């Protein structure tokens, strides 16, 4: 993702009334009503077995209903720090959703609502389907009605390494000998764990560290989303906390030209062990829901809108394993 490229030029203010110009009515375009209508069977599955996750009235993400009694998977980073999560399945709204467990490596949260008789998603036997195959995902909801958006599988399944490597999210003082924290990054694992300016890091995963190089060597093979044990000194007292590692590139985000033309994209979009890629024209909120094949079976869960042209989903094989693990 770091590679340089010739930016596609962004053009604004296209002239509309030029001779010889023909334009296709919007309902006939890929996301248009008339085209989307043919995906009614898959939309019906989304209506029953996907969830809309809201903070008040604001749509945050979608979810995958995985049990009749109200267990739902969603994208963890999109709902982090929301105290009152409301969940809509079909037409029923549940205001008391609880986060039961999260998997930081995959950025998946397991929610529980007090419900009965839900229709859980049906898993496809494999996510190994050829490029160019139709897939369907959640689009913006209109009222109580789910919307389906079509796309195709568009690249090879693969790992998406953490952009820039994994980091605690602290800036260390450069001039002191000890590993003293100068600054804690917003939305970082270090901030969540309560690390503060002035704390001195003395151990990572039980190993003594006193130099930046030692710490860098210990951090080198860590994955974004995993956690490390950080032992630190504050006012003479030592304490140990679990710190979630974030992708460095997302902590110190600088918008590239491609980001500028992508509209909104997921804040966590790298550091996934394996994804399948598709081209559904969604937005940041359209993650967390199921990715369906034309049979209406779940081939994965949408986990990131990476940019204007690329969206990622967790493959069904890994999704089943994550669900089983979080349900324990």
């Amino acid at each position, binding site marked *: *993702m*770091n*590679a*340089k*490229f*010739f*930016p*596609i*030029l*962004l*053009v*604004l*203010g*296209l*002239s509309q009334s*030029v*001779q*010889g*110009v*023909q*334009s*296709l009515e919007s309902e*006939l*375009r*890929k*996301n*248009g009503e*008339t*085209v989307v*209508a*043919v995906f009614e069977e898959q939309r019906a599955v989304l209506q029953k077995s996907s969830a809309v996750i809201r903070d008040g009235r604001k749509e945050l993400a979608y979810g995958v209903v995985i049990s009749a009694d109200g267990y739902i998977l969603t994208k963890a980073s999109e709902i982090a720090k929301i105290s009152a999560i409301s969940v809509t399945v079909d037409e029923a709204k549940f205001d008391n959703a609880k986060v039961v467990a999260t998997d930081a490596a995959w950025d998946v949260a397991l929610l529980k609502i007090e419900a009965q008789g839900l229709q859980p998603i049906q898993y496809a036997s494999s996510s190994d389907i*050829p*490029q*160019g*195959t*139709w897939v369907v995902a959640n689009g913006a909801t209109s009222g109580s009605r789910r919307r389906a958006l079509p*796309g*195709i599988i*568009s*690249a*090879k399944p*693969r*790992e998406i390494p953490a952009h820039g490597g994994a980091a605690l999210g602290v800036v260390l003082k450069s001039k002191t000998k000890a590993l003293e924290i100068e600054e804690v990054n917003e939305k970082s694992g270090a901030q969540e764990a309560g690390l503060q300016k002035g704390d001195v890091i003395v151990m990572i995963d039980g190993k003594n560290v006193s130099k930046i190089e030692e710490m860098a060597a210990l951090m080198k093979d860590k994955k974004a989303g995993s956690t490390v044990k950080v032992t630190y000194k504050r006012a003479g007292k030592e304490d140990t906390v679990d710190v979630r590692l974030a992708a460095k590139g997302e902590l110190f985000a600088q918008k*590239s*030209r*491609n980001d*500028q*033309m*992508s*509209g909104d994209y997921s804040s966590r979009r790298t550091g996934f062990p394996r994804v399948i*890629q598709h*081209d559904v*024209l969604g937005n940041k909120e359209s993650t967390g829901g199921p990715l369906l094949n*034309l049979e209406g079976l779940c081939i994965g869960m949408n986990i990131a809108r990476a*940019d*204007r*042209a*690329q969206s990622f989903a967790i493959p069904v094989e890994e999704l089943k394993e994550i669900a089983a693990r979080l349900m324990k």
Partner: protein
Amino acid sequence: MTRRFPFLLLALAPVMAMAAPDRPYINDKKAPDSRKDLDVIQKALATVLPKAREATVCIDLGEGSGSGVIVSPEGLVLTAAHVATGVGKELTVIMEDGKKLKAESMGLVSTTDCAMVRILEKGTYPFVSMDREDTTKLGDWVFSLGHSGGFDKDRGSVVRLGRLVRTADSTIQSDCTLIGGDSGGPLFDLEGRLIGIHSRVGEVLSQNMHVPMREFIAHWEEMTRGEFVGEGPFAKKPEKGKGFFGLATEARPEGGLKVTKVGRESPAEKAGFKEGDVILKLNGKPLATREELQEMIKEMSPGDKMALDLLKGGKAETLEMKLGER
């Protein structure tokens, strides 16, 4: 980012060719309305995608990359003018499997964003056919390929499906989303024929602009000859006097110029110049003073070829190199 550039159009409306007999029926339907219709699109993609993908390449110029597509077995590549950036530029073509090939830009049309590139290494390359008769119509189902965000071997080029949503004389628009790195990549119809080259995008996701094949066909000969056509926004002609050599010299009493300093990473250094080398002639003209060399370079443009007669360690040598850009 908000800069608006002239949207150039020819005065004449395009002449719509008759539909080819093998045109997929789905293109003449308002929208797919059955599972069968969807399967037709999916099956067409599955059939033509492997070949289309094989012929789609990444074009690497060192300071950036774009995409392109091979249209002849000898390795003729079509791309965008803003990827080629100029005529006679050295660049690298990267195949889908990661194989790197030396290549050179040929001509370009700077007004509409067309360019040609030639793979210099001999071989028989996978290629796609072009829709020369201009048979595509508004609403046709199309797919795009390109190395979005740069070459990634684990990922391969990225395929996107959409429809032709807008047509004008020198631009066609689809809802196959494009992003940086896709520039110069191919847009295909469902029969796997090349119908356009990716050029630019608008803010809305359905505004993805491609240069239609007819623009390439109209300027085919000029591009083959290596001409820089027009003075458009997509490529800038090299400017006289902007050339960069990157060395300092002093005149020798016996004639010729002794190199006293070679700039780091300069064109001179890349060409192998060392301190103490002697330049006797540039493009056949003997040099006696520094000013003579400076005057000659001032009359040249970046990318111009220089034929040099040298003394290296007392031995006569000839060298050909291109003038760099300041």
